[in-house]
């Protein structure tokens, strides 16, 4: 979240789209309800009418997988009706920046539905290499080269890109009622006014598509057009599920990241040495952005916070290997050699068969607190991949479909060679430590009780594992063993004798020479004198002690916007709303005055030449006046990107593409002239899909989760109370589809896709309706995916049906849109 849970109460309009807050984030509804009580309008867009829809003022149905069309039409509405915030666009975004003259949007007739070559997705530069922008206007002629160069601004390209996303076209793609769509466009875009804000609450409904990253991009464009970024009640807010999933990605659990959203080194020549900024062909030089200040070069300047990356990476290396020069210990980090996302790992395992062994096969797998035997897409394919492992370790509270894959129905255990170990872990109340919620708020908790039996806190399991591995390598003088021999395990002994606290203090960081804690990441250095496990959390445990344990329930912010600075600690630097520099006027006579004074976040008092007290922590350069720095300090040009520069694989602007499996044979946006589905996705060899418009699988399906169960179900399908309130899997369908198929409510039905079939009960409901898509009737169904063959309440897994294909950028699987057929048993 750019904002945080409590801040939802400040919104004038709340768009719940790609998420289902009432069912999957019930606590969020505390704040949605509070906003509603103050008069906010709740809009919900979802393929089916959910418990969130039931509490919304406006509900719109849509076909799963058409979010870019839906949001793209809202962008066009805002542009056509002058409902965008010109001053904000000029001051805070790249709207007025010129783009390479050779760039063409997906509206160019020579390549409909696709953009010009990727090397044109760049700023138009002057002779000094500075991007050229207009002052005080969104559109115009290049001030350096005149009309001759033909360069256009981002804003001009944006208007061109979305020129065909009119409401009629959009609704023929999404199936939404045009009247409702018009109401949503108007209601949402009316928040372009300075004093209004709207928030977007999304989750897996936006990400789990072959266009997942671009769904989010479309949302950010709209939020910037409406001046909704950085302000109270605004932002792009990913609702994250498990209470620490935010913390897990913050700490580098994703394959392409090390801690604090620094990139993981790759096996490429540019990453061969750590180096420094300005060093040829080094990791830090390649990965540290240089400030990109526009022509003409006048204040404000780009803050370019990622220019500090060398300090953060060097300090992380010192935390892990304090006695080793960080230029040497950089060599200890593994260098990834390819995409190692979830699907790719399972495809690699699958690919290693006795008949065609891989040269470097994946021999073993650790599975911690996840259950790919239920939550993997094309899940029988993923279960089968486990057959090819030599060993697998599962750490969980219960036996799961993953740990039990070798004795699942239809499999003869004798044929499975994989040796499986089950380590009993601890539930959240059986261990102490911090958890970080979606709002980036780290909160410390104590342990309520010990885990039962042989179960252990996972930190203790990891410590024992590390100790055992270290002892195996002790005394080795081989270079290849040094990463293990030299590692600081489990943490610097000067910090504490308590494992959890010691690691937390290492994450905060300390001075290597003295062992005293650093105050926060502003004190980190790239010269090896500081150690810090994760710069984002630096400040959580300074010398003054653990800040995550703070529990003062008073909101000291004068505008009572729910900042609660003395409750827990929010990264970075206890800032609750990031990009908050964008919440005030940037220049001129009203510099520093909030766009919305009644719900101000920060307020620069010109007379006092200082920010008012008890506001939020100012985003970067805390004492610098607004006009000193551009507000989006994490971008090297300092402004928000309406157009993505290089960035994503599939384009600098989002474009509607059909899901990989679609009931249509031509992309209706480009009248069939452009690509049907996302041309930038990777299709794994051997994966199976229904053909476009496949008559055998005419029904659009989507998957989701319910309030009553958690994700892969290991934690909830073993709890009798929760099994009782949602005992079995089902498929939701409209009364119209049920009638056509002769299905009654509660009947057993077979749902089949190109990959497999499952038997579940029918939930016939008024909450699904057939849609009219490009002139034809399309039915949609939905399946919750929690179930599997293990646990005390079991049932078929919806993911037997889902495709093994991912987003063009992240490769998150397309769980949300695929094709099925349905028969009564």
């Amino acid at each position: 979240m750019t904002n945080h849970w409590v801040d939802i109460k400040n919104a004038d309009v709340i768009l719940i789209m790609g998420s289902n807050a009432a069912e999957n984030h019930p606590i969020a509804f505390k704040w949605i309800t509070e906003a509603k009580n103050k008069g906010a309008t709740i809009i919900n867009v979802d393929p089916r009418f959910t418990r969130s829809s039931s509490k919304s003022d406006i509900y719109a149905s849509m076909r799963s997988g058409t979010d870019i069309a839906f949001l793209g039409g809202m962008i066009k509405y805002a542009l056509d009706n002058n409902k965008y915030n010109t001053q904000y666009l000029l001051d805070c975004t790249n709207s007025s920046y010129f783009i390479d003259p050779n760039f063409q949007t997906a509206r160019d007739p020579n390549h409909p539905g696709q953009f010009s070559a990727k090397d044109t997705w760049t700023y138009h530069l002057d002779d000094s290499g500075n991007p050229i922008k207009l002052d005080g206007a969104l559109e115009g002629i290049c001030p350096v080269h005149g009309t001759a160069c033909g360069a256009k601004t981002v804003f001009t390209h944006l208007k061109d890109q979305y020129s065909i996303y009119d409401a009629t076209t959009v609704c023929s793609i999404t199936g939404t009622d045009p009247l409702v769509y018009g109401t949503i466009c108007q209601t949402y875009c009316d928040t372009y006014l300075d004093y209004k804000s709207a928030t977007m609450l999304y989750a897996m409904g936006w990400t789990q598509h072959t266009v997942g990253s671009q769904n989010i991009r479309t949302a950010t464009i709209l939020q910037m057009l409406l001046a909704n970024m950085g302000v109270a009640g605004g932002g792009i807010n990913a609702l994250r599920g498990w209470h620490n999933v935010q913390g897990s990605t913050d700490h580098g659990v994703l394959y392409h990241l090390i801690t604090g959203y620094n990139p993981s080194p790759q096996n490429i020549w540019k990453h061969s040495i750590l180096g420094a900024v300005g060093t040829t062909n080094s990791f830090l030089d390649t990965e540290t952005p240089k400030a990109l200040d526009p022509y003409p070069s006048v204040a404000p300047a780009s803050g370019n916070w990622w220019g500090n990356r060398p300090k953060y990476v060097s300090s992380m290396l010192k935390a892990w290997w304090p006695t080793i020069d960080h230029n040497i210990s950089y060599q200890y980090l593994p260098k990834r050699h390819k995409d190692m996302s979830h699907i790719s790992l399972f495809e690699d395992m699958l690919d290693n068969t006795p008949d065609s062994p891989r040269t470097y096969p994946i021999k073993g797998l650790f599975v911690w607190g996840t259950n790919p035997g239920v939550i993997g897409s094309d899940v029988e394919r993923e279960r089968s991949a486990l057959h090819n492992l030599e060993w697998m370790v599962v750490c969980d509270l219960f036996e799961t479909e993953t740990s039990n894959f070798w004795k699942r129905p239809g499999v003869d255990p004798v044929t499975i060679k994989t040796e499986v170990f089950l380590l009993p872990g601890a539930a959240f109340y059986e261990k102490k430590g911090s958890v970080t919620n979606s709002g980036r708020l780290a909160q410390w908790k104590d342990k309520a009780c010990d885990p039962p039996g042989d179960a252990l806190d996972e930190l203790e399991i990891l410590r024992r594992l590390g100790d055992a591995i270290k002892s195996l390598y002790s005394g080795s003088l081989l270079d290849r063993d040094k990463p293990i021999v030299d590692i600081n395990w489990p943490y610097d002994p000067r910090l504490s004798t308590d494992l959890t606290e010691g690691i937390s203090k290492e994450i905060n960081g300390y001075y290597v020479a003295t062992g005293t804690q650093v105050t926060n990441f502003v004190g980190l250095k790239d010269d090896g004198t500081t150690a810090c496990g994760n710069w984002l959390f630096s400040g959580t445990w300074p010398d003054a002690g653990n800040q995550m344990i703070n529990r003062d329930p008073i909101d000291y912010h004068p505008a009572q916007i729910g900042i609660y600075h003395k409750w827990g600690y929010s990264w970075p630097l206890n800032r609750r709303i990031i990009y908050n520099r964008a919440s005030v006027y940037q220049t001129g006579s009203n510099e520093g005055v909030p766009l919305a004074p009644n719900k101000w976040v920060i307020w620069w008092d010109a007379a006092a030449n200082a920010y008012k007290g008890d506001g939020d922590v100012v985003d970067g350069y805390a004492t610098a006046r607004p006009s000193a720095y551009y507000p989006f300090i994490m971008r090297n040009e300092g402004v928000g990107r309406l157009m993505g520069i290089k960035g994503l694989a599939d384009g600098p602007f989002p474009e509607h593409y059909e899901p990989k499996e679609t009931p249509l044979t031509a992309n209706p946006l480009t009248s069939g002239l452009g690509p049907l589905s996302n041309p930038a996705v990777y299709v794994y060899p051997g994966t199976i899909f229904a053909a476009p418009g496949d008559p055998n699988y005419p029904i659009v399906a989507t998957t989701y989760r319910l309030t009553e169960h958690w994700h892969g179900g290991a934690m909830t399908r073993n709890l009798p109370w929760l099994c009782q309130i949602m005992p079995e899997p089902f498929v939701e369908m409209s009364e119209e589809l049920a009638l056509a198929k002769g299905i009654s409510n509660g009947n057993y039905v077979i749902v089949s896709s190109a990959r497999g079939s499952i038997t579940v009960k029918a939930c016939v409901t008024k909450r699904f309706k057939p849609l009219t898509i490009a002139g034809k009737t399309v039915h949609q169904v939905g399946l919750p995916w929690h179930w599997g063959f293990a646990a005390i309440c079991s049932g078929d897994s919806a993911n037997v049906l889902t495709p093994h294909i991912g987003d063009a950028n992240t490769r998150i699987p397309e769980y949300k849109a695929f094709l099925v057929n349905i028969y009564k048993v």
Partner: protein
Amino acid sequence: MPATITMIGGISLTGIRLLIDTSKCIACKACQVVCQQWHSLPSEDTNFTGTYQNPPDMSGANLTVAKFFEIAALSKVKWLFFKDQCRHCEVPNCQQHCPFGAIIKQTDGIVRIDPDICNPAACSGSVNKPCQLACHYNIPKYMYVKDGSSVTTDMRKCDLCYNRFGNLSLPAASQKPSCEATCPPGAIFSGDADTILIQANDRVTYLQANGFPNANVYPNQSGVGTLTHVIWVLTEDPAVYGLS
């Protein structure tokens, strides 16, 4: 709040009242689970019957159940939720019909069944016991099914977590019914009976002016027969929820 205040649309009542605001309920069933936890009740057997509502009704194992209603009007769908439970009548008919005097009405208005006195097997040969037949709302239950077998219990219903009020072993914020303490959107409130009724009437007025013309307080509190210590704010006519 003085007990003598003259109510608009309601008779003055002393003691505790619980308000369940269905316009805020998201039917997450946290109230069901926490109720079983506080009362140390087991799960019962269920299966999916075509609705999210589960268990289908109250039982010896479940003292409250969120009920789901789908309606469609003018091409708009509504999904209504009703957290069903004992109303805690000011004049509890069940109490008057209990042959053993097992049903207690506390001075704060809470109506509860003493499990040490209640004995369904002894009180009537009929499957439906006198208190059940007497209840206007079909609330008390004494059976459930577990692992395929029928289990008989003492007669059970909501006791408004009477032993949480003023319970100093709980944090101050938790000294109220467990469902209220747990409800994520804050749809449940307890407090002084008249204050809560004013709150309910205010909410109904607000809802009627903001898209819910049929909003009402249920039971309507207009006479002794419908005067209760648990009330609901409904967004539709009670009949839509199958209530009379």
